[in-house]
């Protein structure tokens, strides 16, 4: 008797590998398929056939109800918060990152150490403190009150600083010789070189603020300021949250995921950047 050949064993190994991959892919994708399908189901259909992603009859009831629930207002608020937070973070983080990487000034080491220390503060510990300071500054229940705490970001400063450290000084020297001042050099020469990092930072801030629930939660109380997360969150845990409204809730989950999904698929190469390029294929 011959032992199974190396080829056969390889084949078995491959089959097992793909089976495992497929199993996990189903585990990660199927819930989303169910989400999409159930959003178009009737409530009875959703409760009766939970495993079937295809509705018996496609209905738009859930989406109509969602519109009744002020969904468009939440969407607008989410857009406002996300746009301002992202613009602020990208601009301020790159400015501070550049100063910390490239300009020589007294206190630079201390400032950098402070920013690193601040990065270590766990976000959830800040819920009560954020509420307290917003109240004290009369910013509670206002747009700035929802935007500014989310704009506060030390990690982005760190990312930008690391990039600017890697820029060769000769480029700035050349700009200086051409008569450009510090701000001009930063804005027109060095910053454009940071496009991939700026993209990463933009995506991170977009995702972080679009998906943020807890900070927005403690920054406002009036329903007219609800963003998608807190508005939809109210649908789930609030007065209406009596389990049986699966199509409505899943339609809300679907609708709020679409923008991040688009950003994700368009900018995948920035998000799933894993250093693979360094390996020769």
């Amino acid at each position, binding site marked *: 008797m011959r032992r199974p050949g190396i080829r056969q064993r390889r084949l078995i*190994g491959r089959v097992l590998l793909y089976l495992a991959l497929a199993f*996990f*892919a189903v585990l*990660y*994708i199927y*819930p*989303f398929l169910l989400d999409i399908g159930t959003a178009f189901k009737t409530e009875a259909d959703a409760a009766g056939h*939970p*495993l079937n992603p295809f509705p018996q009859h496609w209905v738009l009831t859930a989406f109509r109800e969602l519109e009744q629930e002020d969904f468009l207002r939440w969407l607008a608020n989410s857009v406002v918060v996300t746009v301002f937070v992202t613009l602020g973070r990208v601009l*301020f983080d790159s400015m*501070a990152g550049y100063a910390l990487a490239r*300009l*020589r*000034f007294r206190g630079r080491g201390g*400032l950098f150490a*402070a*920013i690193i220390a601040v990065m*270590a503060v*766990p*976000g*959830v*510990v*800040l*819920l*009560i403190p954020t*509420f307290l*300071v917003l*109240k004290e500054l009369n910013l509670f229940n206002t747009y700035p009150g929802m935007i*500014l*705490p989310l*704009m*506060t970001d030390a990690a982005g*400063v760190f990312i930008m600083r690391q990039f600017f450290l890697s820029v060769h000084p000769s480029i700035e020297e050349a700009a200086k010789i051409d008569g450009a001042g*510090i*701000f001009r050099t*930063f804005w027109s020469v060095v910053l454009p070189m940071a496009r991939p990092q700026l993209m990463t930072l933009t995506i991170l801030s977009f995702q972080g603020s679009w*998906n943020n629930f*807890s900070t927005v*939660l*403690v920054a406002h109380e009036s329903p007219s300021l609800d963003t*998608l*997360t807190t508005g*939809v*969150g109210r649908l*789930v*845990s609030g007065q209406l949250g009596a*389990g049986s409204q699966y199509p409505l*809730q*899943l339609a809300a*989950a679907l609708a*709020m*995921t679409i923008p*991040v999904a688009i950003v994700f698929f368009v900018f*995948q190469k920035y*998000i*799933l950047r*894993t*250093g693979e390029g*360094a*390996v020769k294929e």
Partner: protein
Amino acid sequence: MSKVRRQETAAAWLMSAPVIALLVVFLVAPIVMAAWVSISDWTGIGSPFSGGVHAVGLKNYGALLTTPGLPQQQLGQSLRNNLYYVILVVPIQTALALGLAVIVSRQRLAGRGFFRTAYYFPSITSSVAVSILFLYIFGTTGVINAIIGNLGAHGPNWFDDPNGVLHMVLSGLGVTSAPSAMANHGFLGVSWWDWLAGPSVAMVAVIALAIWTTSGTFMLIFLPAIYAIPGDLTEAAIMDGANAWQRFRRVTLPMLRPTLFLVLTLGLIGTWQVFDQIYLITQGNPAGTTLTPAFLSYLTSFGNQQWGQGAAIAFILFAIIVVLTIVQRMIISERRADRAS
């Protein structure tokens, strides 16, 4: 100081000013304020700095840590719940993330991009959307129970079931009540028997959610580290006749040690902060078995207007996270020192 240097200094502070202002106003100042509130008798009315608010020393902390009563018992319960959450989520999500990363990093793999996207996608979805999904999946008439039903068994009412998993195992073995030594003594207002309850059925569903959502995130941290392993190292192992498992055990894993520690640290810090899912799915119910310190802190202050106690819980949580981070740093540096010597 030369003119150029002065200009540079001015520009530097100017460019850092927005970030510094934001960090001071929305991070440092809030923490200082909350520290004051945690040692005060502020009731949420007016400013905590107004004349009617008094310092009460460590009374709030005492009520939570040393004085028997409801606050202490709730804190003890929330710590127990979160501890089981951490013990289950951190190792499983790390192992899953590492396994997925090792597989999708293979050079010859059809559909590599697809699998990577599939595993990562839950990570970009908001906690609200994922919570809704899991409310549906683990609902009484939901997906999991439908699968269990197809197998001929009866699924639990997941989010309404406060029974501890370890207690259920014990009762399966015939141990239905606590030995009196364990029932009558305890820690932080929770009897030793209840400390050993294990995560409740409801918490198990929340744990599943956490693992499902974050394993893709950590897969993405492992991937660059795997690609950074020099190819000749793996080739040499193949030449020596090492099989896939041996290569993983002897080459990949040791090379990934720093990343592994990073992932464990991030996991540990993250899991002690679980808030959104609790707020959205269970609000700490059933029977307080999904209370976590983060949610309890919110509930105590925003819900019951016990601001001093709520803030004190936040600082106790802060302390737990800081201590764990320091301990982990110490373990890492000790290992480094071992290897250096």
